[in-house]
């Protein structure tokens, strides 16, 4: 019974269904309970919150990641799945501390100074939330000082910077410099992304990682999180 509902949650994450009204990837799902209804039901049946998250949501999302990687899934598919996970996490949030579960980490994301493009950053935010991270989104055209202030206030493990323009990507380097000047550089891992950005560029400005797309961004965060030796 417990196994069944966890498997159903996982399948509905893969199908990208928040509620019973939603279309799935495949035909024939409309009217059947979606992730939010299933999670409510699981909580009512006292199913372990850790199992819901790990074996239902996270396992489902990693299947979605593979399908996106292999080009079977497209951006709307991936966003639907991430939204399903995000809405499940909202329901589960009050139960997390009771169950002794902590969020995987906190990340501040921003499109850097001078740059107004936020689509890529928003996708990364949705995917990170879908993977169990707390995301503070500072928006677009964000001054280095505003990012410094947010790091002081929020105390995140990660800072994610985005830029779409060749004329603004230099401001990623400026932001990293501002973190250094304020003695904060060692407290956070900085990952960057955006159309003109490359691994080479990431290294040249002293970033810790580069993600070519949303799932890669999540993968980089995950590997840096485990590489840094824990979730402090």
């Amino acid at each position, binding site marked *: 019974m417990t196994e069944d509902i966890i498997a159903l949650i996982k399948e509905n994450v893969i199908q990208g269904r928040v509620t019973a009204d939603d279309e799935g990837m495949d035909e024939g799902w409309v009217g059947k309970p979606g992730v939010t209804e299933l999670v409510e039901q699981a909580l009512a049946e006292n199913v372990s919150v850790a199992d819901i998250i790990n074996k239902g949501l996270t396992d489902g999302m990693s299947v979605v990641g593979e399908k996106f990687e292999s080009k079977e899934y497209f*951006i*709307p598919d991936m966003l639907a799945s991430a939204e399903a996970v995000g809405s499940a996490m909202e329901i589960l949030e009050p139960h997390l501390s009771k169950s002794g579960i902590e969020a995987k980490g906190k990340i501040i994301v921003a499109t850097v100074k001078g740059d*107004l493009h936020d689509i890529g950053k928003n996708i990364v935010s949705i995917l990170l939330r879908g993977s169990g991270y707390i995301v503070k989104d500072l928006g*677009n055209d964000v001054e280095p000082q505003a990012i410094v202030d947010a790091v002081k206030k929020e105390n995140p493990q990660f800072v994610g910077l985005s830029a779409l323009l*060749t*004329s603004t990507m230099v401001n990623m380097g400026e932001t990293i410099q501002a973190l250094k000047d304020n003695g904060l550089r060692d407290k956070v891992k900085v990952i960057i992304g955006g159309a*003109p*950005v490359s691994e080479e560029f990431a290294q040249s400005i002293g970033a810790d990682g580069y993600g070519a797309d949303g799932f890669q961004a999540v993968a980089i965060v995950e590997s840096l999180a485990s590489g840094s030796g824990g979730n402090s």
Partner: protein
Amino acid sequence: MLVIGEKINASNRLVAEAIIARNEGYIAGLAKAQADAGADFIDVNVGTAKQTRQEQMAAMEWAVEAVQTATDKPLAIDSDIPEVIETGMRKYGKEELVINSVNAEPEKLEAIGHLAGGRQVRLVALAMSAEGIPPTAEERLATCETIMTYLTRLGVSEEQVYFDPLVLPVSVDSGQALTTLKTLERIKVRYPQAKTVMGLSNVSYGLPNRKLINRAFLLMAAYVGLDAAILDPLDAKAMSLIKAADILVAKDPQCRRYIRAYRNGTLMA
């Protein structure tokens, strides 16, 4: 509908490599192919990540010359940086060109407005400001009003301005195409003398068979009065659809251009 050929853009890796290596044959080849396919303007964008402003200015000078070895078609000088546009314009020397682009940021309006004012050049103006791309058609129209007011003061006439209502991917939010089309309609009512232009391909980002979506969108935009499209002129189906659409929105009197294209064998059904 005017067609601005989009292929010489350094956001494409091969183009960027050709620009860095000063491979004139490659850039001239792209220019000629687009001109032959019926492009009215050849866009030139040389902005790559690794280049400084000075390097981009030098690259623009070089590219303007490279394109002119291949075709007499007028250019669209494309950059985020006003100095790069100015360099390209000076090198090009002719007045029949498109400046691509300006937006509602005051510094850009000031710099680009002075380049366009009192000349015959066409000017692409993006319906966005320093605060970003406004989410609604009303706010995008308000941004266009800010732009027009500023440009008029610098001697730019309404007919010179090609407003870009901006296109965001429907894969991320399926309401985006309608927002763009509504913005187009409103611009046409508010500024009947001004023109409109769009890069179509952004609409289909993240979806399979993108050309299908681009073409559907092209026809809808044609109906609400799109005057120019930034696209790949080597897409013969899209180019043929434009000719068909021009008839249907009464922009091809007596269907002459459509029939000529048919006789020339360039129409693709």
